[in-house]
């Protein structure tokens, strides 16, 4: 047991770097992401923010090679993901999709165990080690008590935590999350984001996360990319990106950025009736 543990720890030290190079993405004929170039440093927690339809989720899908670039490239440690076989890619990058559909008659534990898929050959079945990895992941996401429940009986927040347990079971080197907090109440939002942050800090995991909530993005992310109509509007630390000018230009809401009373990070406070068209 200790041998496999040491191996796992060594694995943790191998962090990867993600890059998008002039990435353009499209569904049929509508281009949703245009010539996007950015990098995610190893072990960094990068937030993608922007209004609805700005292309955040599409970028996540492109990084897991579910949709193919119209032009440009996505690189993992300098290697084009189009050249990486799917099982290998799934060992490098794990995804928590937005509102994942799960087959309702499977148990929670079975769903989490599916995270081992990229580690198993066609003829292999899950062994004790795979079960233990799944069980530990469920421990970290506080879902062990759900293990034998049918997925169809679970709430949105429970499913969200379950899918995060599945991505931990997958043991990827980078985790991409698409709106992981959209189904959760404020307590669970903080719980999940604390967990993700700890993956980043303690396990050296590279994290890319899309968030609607600018305040959560400011609190948790090391760096933010602000997207507008599929193009990069601003990037940098939360303090550099979330300022009155950017928020007004991208969201059309004016004068609503303040400093957080405790840690001074930018905080967006909304006020009824205070909205104008995004045109400047």
């Amino acid at each position, binding site marked *: 047991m200790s041998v496999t543990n040491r191996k796992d720890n060594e694995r943790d030290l191998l962090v990867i770097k993600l890059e998008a190079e002039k990435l353009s993405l499209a569904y049929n004929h509508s281009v949703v992401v245009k010539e996007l170039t950015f990098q995610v440093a190893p072990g960094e927690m990068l937030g993608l923010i922007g209004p609805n339809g700005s292309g955040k989720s599409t970028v996540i899908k492109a990084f897991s090679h579910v949709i193919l670039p119209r032009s440009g490239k996505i690189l993992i440690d300098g290697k084009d993901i189009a050249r990486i076989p799917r099982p290998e890619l*799934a060992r490098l990058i794990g995804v928590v999709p937005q509102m994942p559909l799960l087959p309702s008659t499977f148990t929670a534990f079975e769903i989490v165990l599916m995270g081992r898929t990229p580690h198993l050959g066609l003829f292999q079945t899950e062994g004790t080690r795979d079960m233990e990895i799944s069980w530990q992941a469920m421990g970290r996401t506080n879902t062990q008590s759900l293990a034998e429940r049918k997925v169809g009986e679970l709430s949105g927040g429970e499913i969200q935590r379950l899918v995060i347990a599945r991505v931990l079971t997958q043991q990827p080197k980078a985790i991409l999350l698409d709106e992981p907090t959209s189904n959760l109440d404020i307590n669970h939002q903080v719980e999940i984001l604390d967990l993700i942050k700890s993956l980043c800090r303690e396990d050296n995991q590279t994290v890319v996360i899309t968030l609607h909530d600018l305040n959560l993005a400011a609190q948790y992310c090391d760096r933010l990319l602000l997207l507008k109509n599929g193009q990069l509007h601003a990037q940098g630390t939360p303090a550099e990106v979330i300022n009155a000018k950017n928020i007004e230009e991208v969201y059309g809401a004016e004068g609503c950025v303040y400093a957080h009373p405790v840690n001074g990070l930018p905080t967006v406070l909304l006020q009824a009736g205070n909205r104008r068209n995004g045109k400047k």
Partner: protein
Amino acid sequence: MSSNQVKPPRIEPAVPVRLPHRRRRAFGILGLLLVLGVVGAFATAVGSVQIPFLTILQVMFSKLPLVGITPNWPETTETIVLAIRLPRVILAGLVGAALSLAGATYQGLFRNPLADPYLIGVAQGAALGAVTGFLFPFDWPGIGVGIIPFLAFIGAVLSVAIVYLLARVGKTLPVTTLILAGVALGALFGSIVSFLVITSGQAMQGIIFWLMGSFSLSKWSEVQVILPYVAVGVVVILLYSRPLNVMQLDEEQAQQLGINVERVKLILLIAATLITAAAVSFVGTIGFVGIIIPHVVRLIWGPDNRILLPMSVLTGAIFMVSADLVARTLLSPMELPVGIVTAVCGAPFFLYLLRRKKRAVFF
């Protein structure tokens, strides 16, 4: 907290959760094999000529090597058992297994409880081929089997191939498009078949009997032709039962978990189509088995394809052998089309199960 420090050895918690399919699989498979053996032996023993059960066993065992049983039964008994009943029972078992497994596979592949082996045009293609054979009964010794099964097989495989080519978008095969193309082409072929049937004159009765399915002309040669298809198809499909589980998530998640979704879809589609085509080409388009047996199995043993698929194979075989037994003995010497029996016996049993387990069980 830093990962550079040496962590103290963790005490791993034993996992207190067991996987449902493992608990049930071994017992279930052994139990069903036993049932299949008993039902098969019983079906071989029963018929218009009464033969004692013991004699049946003696006749069968006498053909095994190293078993010294001296024949003390008439020649006709041996002919009835070995040349008439046994191939029929085995053929029914193979066809039941094939249709039921193909149905379970399509249901998993399409994530749709209404899917059956005939959803994407196999049955109508086979029917069109068979009817052509009935109307133009020329003999072509080169093909080794009769003209009707040959054309039925070609028709089944061709129609799925056409559906596949129509539904493909670039390198991907959207499941909904596949179903819609299959249903549309099936309707087209079905109406051509109907037209041919009403204008077929004397051949009509034979055609209708074929369409409803029958094992009345079963011979060892047919078992020999079907067996390789079913054996290879079953092995291939069972090998992919874990990926098929993962594909019960949506296709995007399956891809993100490392499954080559398009490749798995294509392999399973080809395997399920070939076993269905091989099965129906000899015995006709027997309905009901392919859609209901997988649901019966799912109700009893749960949704995990690693138990669902092998159990569907065995349950389908048991059910078809029993249905054929009823078909040939109920109104003896007249023989019912087995397709009628499968529906009349199977539907009430399924409805009973559905009522008894009132939870949402399907997908």
